[in-house]
């Protein structure tokens, strides 16, 4: 048996996190944590290399035999994209949170929780068994909860409980579906929770629909989509930027990831049935999130709402069922991770100096801290999907792909593109431009970003720019997943209307 790379990849940070729970010096703890994160990054890149080389990474060991559950891990293009995003973002988050907020828990605990969260998330993206997925899906909530409660803002208790309850509610509804899957699987022979085996069952009709809805509700809450999104702005507002990055950038991806892998993968017929509803639902999210961002008076809330809008695009792309839109959605997931990370971290830098996330508290920062302002602008541009940023490519894929099937829906959703410009630039305008306010002068003069803070942004923006100009590798990575899913669902792209144009 070859070395179980995927198991190792997921366990490494978890072990690191557990190790960090032991008493040790603060400096040592942080270095150790960072070391584990970097080691995980290295292993993650190694896994990517192996994947590229065509190695079979799949692990499949009986786990709970009585229920046909397997310790089954594997990565496809989408999974690998998410894995890479996670392993890259984690060390950056650690560096950005090198000094957790005063009066909260210690950096050691933060690092430990981040590592555990990372490991659990990695398993989520690699799990190839429904129960295994569910297990880690729910388990990620715990470290996240503590990350919010232990390090967040004034209303962190409320926000953390809200986050956990919304997520758990979704998760438990999904549990009902998971249980139902077993009953069906068992009634059709030997029970198995392997995704591949369940996909073979082609569960149609009412049963399939109801089971699909169970999964879908969980993912809708996770993604989050209107009207089950209100936990996100609160959670983001009352957590640290690093936590928010992991929460929105990585964890929320499980929502869209799950829709593709489980809703579409296990219930193709039911998913098609849900399409009209989901498409409009996505549009509502896009616009709602955008308007929410426009109305936000708090920077973290604003970024959170932008994410609601962006998740709307991802969902739209998923339920448009074209190669372009679906590939675009997956690519969007990757890009959004980095884009949100950039936004949250820069906002964090600003808030660390100003001591407030309120938009009103800023003004004229550009004059005294041009680098911070510039980075905020670039991050914002990535959020509004400016060409040259990878976010553009994915949004373009989603929009054009969806257009070829639902032009009217897409046209409505595109209002979100304009609103994106409004919320990003208005935010920039109100905080960074104008005359230098007294508060800005006090808090920002001579306190532009430090070298470390700038260095953290380099890989994030670097990825966004690189994939903006050279998106082909990422597109090639995710496209096979999209193809496979579409083939499984049994949908083909609409052919060009005008024949022989090309």
């Amino acid at each position, binding site marked *: 048996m070859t070395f179980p790379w995927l198991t190792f990849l997921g366990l490494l940070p978890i072990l690191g996190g557990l190790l960090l729970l032991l008493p040790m010096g603060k400096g040592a703890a942080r270095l150790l944590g960072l070391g584990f994160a970097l080691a995980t990054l290295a292993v993650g890149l190694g896994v990517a290399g192996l994947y590229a080389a065509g190695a079979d990474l799949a692990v499949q060991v009986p786990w709970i035999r009585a229920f046909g559950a397997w310790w089954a891990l594997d990565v496809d293009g989408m999974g690998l994209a998410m894995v890479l995003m996670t392993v890259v973002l984690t060390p950056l988050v650690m560096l950005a949170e090198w000094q957790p907020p005063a009066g909260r828990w210690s950096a050691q605990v933060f690092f430990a929780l981040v590592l555990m969260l990372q490991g659990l998330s990695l398993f989520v993206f690699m799990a190839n068994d429904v129960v295994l997925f569910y297990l880690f899906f729910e388990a990620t909530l715990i470290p996240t909860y503590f990350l919010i409660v232990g390090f967040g803002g004034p209303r962190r208790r409320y926000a953390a409980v809200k986050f956990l309850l919304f997520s758990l509610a979704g998760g438990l509804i999904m549990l009902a579906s998971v249980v139902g899957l077993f009953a069906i699987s068992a009634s059709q022979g030997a029970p198995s929770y392997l995704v591949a085996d369940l996909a073979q069952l082609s569960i149609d009709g009412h049963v399939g629909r109801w089971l699909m809805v169970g999964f879908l509700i969980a993912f809708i809450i996770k993604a989050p989509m209107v009207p089950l999104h*209100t936990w996100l702005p609160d959670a983001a507002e009352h957590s640290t930027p690093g936590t928010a990055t992991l929460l929105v950038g990585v964890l929320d991806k499980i929502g869209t990831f799950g829709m593709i892998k489980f809703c579409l993968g296990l219930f193709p017929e039911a998913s098609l049935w849900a399409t009209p509803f989901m498409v409009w639902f996505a549009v509502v999210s896009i616009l709602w999130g955008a308007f929410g961002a426009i*109305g936000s008076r708090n920077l973290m809330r604003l970024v959170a709402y932008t994410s609601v809008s962006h998740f709307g695009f991802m969902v739209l792309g998923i339920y448009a069922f074209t190669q372009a839109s679906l590939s675009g959605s997956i690519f969007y997931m990757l890009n959004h991770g980095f884009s949100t990370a950039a936004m949250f971290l820069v906002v964090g830098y600003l808030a660390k100096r100003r001591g407030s996330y309120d938009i009103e508290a800023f003004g004229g920062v550009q004059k005294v801290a041009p680098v911070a302002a510039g980075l905020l602008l670039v991050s914002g541009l990535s959020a509004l999907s400016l060409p040259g940023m990878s976010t553009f490519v994915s949004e373009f894929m989603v929009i054009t792909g969806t257009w070829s099937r639902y*032009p009217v829906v897409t046209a409505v959703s595109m209002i979100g593109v304009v609103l994106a410009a409004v919320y990003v630039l208005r935010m920039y*305008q109100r905080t960074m431009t104008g005359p230098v306010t007294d508060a800005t002068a006090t808090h920002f003069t001579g306190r532009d970003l430090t070298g470390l803070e700038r260095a953290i942004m380099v890989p994030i923006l670097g990825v966004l720019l690189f994939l903006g100009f050279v998106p082909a590798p990422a597109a090639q990575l995710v496209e096979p997943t999209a193809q496979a899913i579409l083939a499984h669902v049994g949908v083909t792209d609409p052919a060009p209307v005008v024949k022989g144009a090309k």
Partner: protein
Amino acid sequence: MILFETIAEPVVATGMFTWAWTMIAVPAVVAGVLLLAGKLSDAWGHLLATAAVLWSFAIAVCLFGHQLFADAGSRAVVAPLYSWFSVGEWSFEVGLLVDQLSILFAMLITGVGSLIHIYSIGYMAHDERRRRFFAYLNLFIAAMLLLVLANNYLVLFVGWEGVGLASFLLISFWQHKPSAAAAGTKAFVMNRVGDLGMLAAIASMLAMFGSSSFTDVNAGAHGLAPQWATMIGLFLLLAACGKSAQVPLQAWLLDAMEGPTPVSALIHAATMVTAGVYLVVRSHAVFETSPAAQLAVVVVATVTLLAGAWIGTSQDDIKKVLAGSTMSQIGYMMLAAGIGPAGYAFAIFHLLTHGFFKANMFLGAGSVMHGMNDDVNMRHYGALSTAMKWTFGTFAMGYLAIIGFPLFAGYFSKDHIIEAAFAQNTFIGICALIGAGITAFYMTRLMLMTFFGEKRWQPGVHPHESPRVMTIPLVILAVASVVSGLVMNNWIQEWLEPAVGNHAHEVSLVPTPVGMATMGIVAAGVVISYLVFGRGSIPVKAPATNNPITLAGRNVLFGDQVNDALFVTPATAVAAAVDATDARGIDKAADSSADAFAGLSTQVRRLETGYVRSYALTMLGGVLFVGVVLILSQLG
């Protein structure tokens, strides 16, 4: 009319043409270097940036020369760069199309761009953020070149948004001024509205043709269903309206004058705002398939050319007058482009000449402001013709060119458009004619208020001529304003024909009847303007008026008010409603369901009275309950 078969397939780039990408890459890289290097490059940044544009200009000129001497069939060259990405059946290549149309643009952009870079060295000399300014300018040059050199709509769109970004950055360059920051945001957002059109157009093209390359779209356009041809045409028009400040997306352009004047000259007069015209001409095959879309272009153009002129008559800010004028002139170009094959070449012709004379005048205005302590109010000017001789002289060339003084650049290019308009539709022609008259009126007003009459200078202002580094570009542009019409008059139609599929008309230097009429109207405009503004003194403060025409003009035809009423206010209200729904609707529901459970919990706990006898009673009740259920289940 179907003309696609006349379009030659471009040949693949060889030799010199393989260098075409450096036109874009060099300014882009320099922009990046200047931004990343920070203060290190303060000392030499502007020089490097200027050199970068000159490099691009040199390449453009070389390519143009190459094309001039090549035979007509191999002039259009495509230079594939790399495969951007592909998904499903769609693949998106990054490639450059250097054809007769794009090379003219490239030269205009890099040529005027170079002059403006040079001019800016002087103009921005005292600005502490000059390096950053040059970086943005270079970014703009790169994006604009990408826009015009792209060989497919998607890459064009990248450039399209890139210039939007550069425009945003440059308009709000003086960020400490809230008005500048707001203007930048406004420009970007309104451009984004237009971008939706672009995005929708590309999406439709992909759905229709499975490709967004010019070749495929032009080849397939005739196969479009009429409604889709119209839709794509309207989408493209929307895009063009946004970028070219055409009604109804015109409101941002006047505010854009908040940017430094070289920016206004380069971006908001000579190059970027004309991208809409380029787009329409480039997409001629689509428009030719849809008369409705063409009509829409013509209507928009006519409305805009009149609206812009109207605005120009009533503004006191010299740059805003010029901006109104720009709108109006672009209206002419759009009109020509909308007319169809008869007008394409004239549209481009006017675009080029306008690029020269408007850049000339903007830079001239900048020079005036430079001498007037950055005051832009013409009512504070007067009698500058003696104080700034070079500026005045060059500005006068531009003036003559724009009003269409015989043999000056505008005379050729605009007259052709008016003629073509008459050939299309008399009403449109008359509108275009009236526009020419108004143009003469407001430009004369500008000249009179700025350079003639008595001094109305504010205290402490000592007008002086600008340094050489600023006047030399003015001179070069003035020369171009004078001669470019004459030079290109006969040549351009034939040159562009393979690229845009226009019909070459016979053009002569002898005025046609329409040309005569135009001259008459223009003369009338000049005379009326002189009668109004040339004889009496001009009040330093704008006189109060109830004249609705003047009021509308001063308020930019209430564009902002309309936008506020139609979009900003509703959007703000929706945002507030969303906020309220989240907080008082959804969250409240969640919170109150929690409260409900807490209340329920209290009630449930009350069942635990602490009295053992009541517990026993509960048990006995339970027994009865069990019995009832059993009986019911037997019945049911």
